[in-house]
């Protein structure tokens, strides 16, 4: 492939971006700064007749319109609202109550504690979608108990780290909201498409825990003081579990049945979580203030990446980056499936260093046109509008599950380390997550081989209309 002068700018942009990332300066500002700098470089090289990008100072004015395009994006309103909902359940102590009740129910099952963690992970998943919050919450509440009960360290830590990450896959998930926006695929389709992959992942975790404990009973001893599970304790547990679980059903149900939009459901979810906190007498102004400020802060650093990425993408595009990437990917000579596998392998390895926000915001938009053009023959049952992109988005979403667990940059690992007792080392955590990374890869293979796992549910839902 003959490289035009502009292409060297594109390559230089990527190289500088990656190099500067490792200085530890915030990702958003590295993206923005590299974008602005290369606009200047291109302006100069244009002046000297080396390139013809058309970039100059004035072109950067486009950035403001692009930022406004993020601000008036009706779909993204769901983002702070889902963050609000998750934080309210966490900060009000509702989630913690749910955890304690569940623990009592499973006290007599070998590995029961670990199974509880996985189940709570799934329920929290469906509510928060905020990795940090779920991992910290699960870690704080269950790691000391499990270690105290002389659970095997690796099993305990791996379960917490992996379960805490389910939230980003199981809907409602802020990652899927962002992916839908970036790929121009209905978010509803992604939500529905994620249900089976998410449940499969959860089921794999639970099956693994139970089988592991069956084979090595000494690694998961029963609690020394486990009591009888009587009707009262079951009822008491249900009182704690049902309201948040009901809220989640309400939110997801109203979206899936087409009663409300994702945005509307997110707002109702936020208020619903607040209402539950009030009913459980866990609500006060301090809690509300913390939730409000943390919601703003979390949305703030996610949107910083939006802003950085839009700056980087504009300059990259003006330098012909889109065409170069398309040519490079199609020039690899892979067939459609080969190309998808290649992309997933790249995403997997990028996940060692980056996390879902950067990958969803920088990589996905670059890949979208190439993937849409592929002849994948994904069965959309004649009703799913973009079966290729929906399936692809979910493959990436499942792959990104690994990014939280893979060293050196794994958010779940860091958060978990932060809340563990001092005798737990980072190496213990690394060792613990390996089986779960393998399970995630198994789930990925399943979704790859059976695309209907993704497309069937949305197809059935629309088919009934």
């Amino acid at each position, binding site marked *: 492939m003959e490289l035009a002068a502009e292409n060297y700018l594109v390559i230089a942009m990527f190289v500088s971006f990656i190099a500067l990332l490792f200085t530890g300066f915030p990702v958003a500002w590295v993206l923005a700064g590299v974008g602005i700098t290369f606009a200047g470089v291109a302006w100069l090289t244009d002046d000297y007749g080396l390139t013809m990008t058309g970039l100059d100072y004035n072109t950067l004015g486009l950035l403001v319109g692009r930022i406004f395009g993020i601000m008036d994006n009706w779909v993204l309103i769901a983002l702070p609202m889902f963050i609000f909902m998750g934080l309210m359940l966490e900060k009000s102590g509702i989630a913690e109550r749910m955890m304690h009740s569940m623990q009592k129910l499973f006290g007599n099952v070998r590995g029961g504690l670990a199974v509880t963690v996985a189940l709570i992970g799934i329920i929290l998943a469906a509510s928060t979608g905020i990795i940090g919050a779920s991992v910290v919450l699960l870690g704080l509440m269950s790691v000391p108990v499990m270690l105290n009960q002389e659970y095997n360290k690796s099993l305990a830590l791996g379960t917490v780290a992996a379960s805490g990450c389910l939230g980003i896959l199981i809907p409602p998930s802020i990652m899927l909201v962002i992916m839908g926006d970036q790929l121009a695929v209905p978010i509803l389709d992604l939500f529905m498409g994620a249900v089976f992959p998410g449940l499969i992942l959860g089921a794999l975790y639970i099956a693994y825990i139970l089988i592991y404990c069956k084979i090595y009973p000494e690694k998961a001893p029963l609690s020394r003081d486990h009591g009888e599970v009587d009707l009262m304790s079951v009822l008491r547990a249900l009182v704690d579990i049902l309201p948040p679980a009901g809220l989640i059903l309400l939110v997801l149900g109203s979206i899936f049945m087409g009663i409300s939009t994702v945005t509307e459901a997110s707002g109702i979810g936020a208020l619903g979580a607040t209402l539950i906190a009030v009913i459980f007498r866990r609500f006060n102004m301090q809690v509300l203030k913390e939730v*409000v400020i943390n919601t703003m802060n979390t949305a703030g650093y996610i949107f*910083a990446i939006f802003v950085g990425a839009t700056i980087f993408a504009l300059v990259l595009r003006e330098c012909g980056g889109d065409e170069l990437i398309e040519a490079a990917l199609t020039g690899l000579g892979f067939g459609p499936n080969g190309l998808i596998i290649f992309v997933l392998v790249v995403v997997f390895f990028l996940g060692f260093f980056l996390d879902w926000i950067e990958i969803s915001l920088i990589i996905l938009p670059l890949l979208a046109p190439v993937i849409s053009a592929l002849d994948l023959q994904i069965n959309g049952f004649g009703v799913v509008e973009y079966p290729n992109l929906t399936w692809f988005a979910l493959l990436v979403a499942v792959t990104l599950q690994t990014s939280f667990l893979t060293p050196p940059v794994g958010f779940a690992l860091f958060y978990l380390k932060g809340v563990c007792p001092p005798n737990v080392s980072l190496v213990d955590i690394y060792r613990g997550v390996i089986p779960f990374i393998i399970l995630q890869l198994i789930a990925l293979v399943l979704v790859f081989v059976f695309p209907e796992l993704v497309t069937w549910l949305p197809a059935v839902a629309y088919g009934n209309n």
Partner: protein
Amino acid sequence: MSKVVSAETHHVPIATFLNGIVQRIVEAFAWLNVLLALLILITVILRYGFHRNGLLLEWPLVPMEELMWHLYSVPVMFGLAYSITNDSHIRIDILRLNMSNRLKHIFEILGILLLLMPCLVILFDFSLDYTVYAFTHNESSQSTMGLPHRWIVKSVIPLSMLLMMIAAIARLIGEVVLLMHHGKEPDDDTPPRIQMTARLLRPLLKVDDNPHDKGAG
């Protein structure tokens, strides 16, 4: 006070002061998220409760829907500045974890000066123009029933750039002072004449962790 100066134990009063201003402003606007949730609820009630039954049809939904993204965009954009004040922006910190504090300060200073600041200044320049343009052209929604006065929500962009500049300058001052005093004991023998200014720029022991120091996740 025999402790040596480091970023973990010391802060710079002027930087803390500037951060405080930004934080107080943005925290006030964060409450718009509650308003947003309530507005969504009202819209849902109108849409599914009343409009479905042909009631309150005169109450148009389009302006309410537009108001939704007006409300959503303010805390989100101002949140960018907030995340600078409490350093919660996402970093790739594998190498940074093993860097000396001196190197960390140097990278941070260079990053603010070369990557962040130019971007903020340029965006401020264009967004101010963008807002004024909307004002002088009397721009409104392109939906016939939409909201007028687009310049109000557009002014959020230059304002958030301004807040970010303040936060970035605060951070810059803090980093420079900490770099200069790094590993030294804080000196108390400044001549009285310049003591007021000096005091603002001298690292002080942190009394207590800022309660909003950590992002949510």
